[in-house]
């Protein structure tokens, strides 16, 4: 069982990102689950979304999770929310920030000694898609860190997931995924 927790603000696309990832993984024959805590669901409110991946049917519907990966797609949430809650020794963190990994850990001692990767998904999204929607770049970074799939396979799969969007937007998302894949450290 692989478990992922997303930290996001409502409107940044964590749910879409979690569902998109689940969609891609499902095509490879694995079982998936993608869900979220919406709270009062106000745009901009901090929220969490979740993925589960397994080789057998996923029957667990508890919301409690000790994640293998934590994705933080809004830079401020690494500072203002408890992103290390239910941490286990093997948990990996991929955090959106303009800071370097060293600068971030220095600024946030709670990340000391943890497996932290950083990538500036907001800037990448702004420069490629033209909007601060950091969900698809985060998946590009995840492909690099996890080496789950070949990046070309992943991009082809995401093209199908994004199928109904205009070609220009799909192309921009592919650039964003590739840039985050290349830039995550």
């Amino acid at each position, binding site marked *: 069982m692989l478990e992922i927790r997303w930290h996001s603000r409502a409107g940044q696309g964590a749910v879409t990102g979690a569902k998109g990832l*689940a969609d891609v993984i499902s095509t490879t024959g694995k079982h998936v689950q*993608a869900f979220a805590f919406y709270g009062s669901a106000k745009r901009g409110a901090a929220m969490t979304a979740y993925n589960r991946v397994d080789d057998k049917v996923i029957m*667990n519907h508890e919301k409690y999770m000790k994640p293998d990966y934590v994705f933080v797609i809004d830079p401020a949430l690494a500072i203002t929310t408890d992103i290390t809650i239910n941490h286990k020794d093997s948990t990996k963190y991929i955090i959106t920030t303009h800071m370097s990994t060293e600068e971030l850990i220095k600024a946030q001692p709670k990340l000391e000694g943890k497996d932290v990767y950083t990538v500036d998904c907001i800037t990448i999204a702004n420069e490629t898609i033209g909007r601060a929607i950091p969900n698809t770049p985060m998946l590009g970074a995840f492909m690099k860190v996890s080496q789950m799939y070949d990046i070309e396979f992943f991009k082809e799969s995401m093209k199908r997931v994004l199928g109904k969007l205009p070609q220009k937007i799909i192309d921009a998302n592919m650039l964003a995924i590739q840039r985050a894949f290349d830039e995550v450290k």
Partner: protein
Amino acid sequence: MAFDKMELQKIEVWDGNRAAAQALRQAQVDVVAAYPITPSTPIVEGYAKFLADGYIEGEFAMVESEHAAMSACIGAAAAGGRVATATSSQGLALMSETLYQASGMRLPIILNLVNRALASPLNVNGDHSDMYMIRDSGWIQFDAFCPQESYDLNLIAFRVAEDHDIRLPAIVNQDGFMTSHTAQGVHTLSDDEAYAFVGEYKPMNDMLDFEHPVTHGVQTEEDWHFEHKARQHNDLMVKVMPKIKEVFADFEKLTGRKYNLVEKYDMDDADVCVVCMGSSVETAREVATEMRAKGIKAGVVGFRVFRPIPFAEIIDALKGVKAIAALDRSSPNGAAGTLFNEIAGALFNTDTKALLSGYVYGLGGRDLTKAHLTALFNELQANVDAGKVTTQLQQFIGVRGPKLAYL
């Protein structure tokens, strides 16, 4: 026909709402009248979008309230259409008057009830208060534990409800958010397969059949009211279960997916078991398997059909078990829990010596964790070992503050 078909993958990653909306599309529902409410909104939104995109030949009626939504559904069903809608919580509460009209008028409407807590305090998350609130309304109630079942049970519900021997409305329940907004792999049928299974709608006593005028929604006082209600109850008690079994069997032939009135998991030799509904059934199954590895013979019983109550199947499922936990995701507000009472009622005249205890859990979407369920199975085993219920009969799982226990 004047609509497009949709190419689906064999497995789509859908949440429970999407799965239900796709089933409504594939059933080619004629009329959806709806007033959207969280967390059921994406179902009727989905129908409306499929309609606007040319995938359905039908009508979407936007109305001013849930009371009006069900009223319009009743009108459309009486006119002779295949009709469906969706709601949750307060929406169902406002609809409740008209629910009794629909069942009394024998109109086979399908209602997707995405289970959510009832205010006050206001809460949009999942529990079974709304499901329980209308349990005496004369609607058949199915319960889905995951998105796949939300899809399957919608297709099944049309077949059961619209059968001319049944002609009763049916609710398909799914847990708000925990199922409705949780995306999982859903095995799909093609549009042709799904429509062939549901079948073309054959109206009965439809008001638009001008050659055969009928009256709907009549008044009967003490001269006839009781006979109407008794006949309706009779059909629920006598005709519905065999029909559901028949449709379940047909569905299994088509898809390989087998449904039962009561879903048993590892019950053949179980000493202890949890009885519950909704997504909790699946989590409990996973924990039951883990308990067996620890030497506790655990099983799980889930109600697939909540109304009519599968009385004989409950007795059968629970025979031989030594301790039973009835889990209710709704505040009984001054009584034992509903499942506790249903199980007690079913078992009372049997020779079971099973120890029955009740638990209230998960109100307003509060998480039911695997740790909770592990502790629960251990407590049931302790009851078995002691030969009596070692706690009070009613306890709470997952609530903060001092321990609450009654009865």
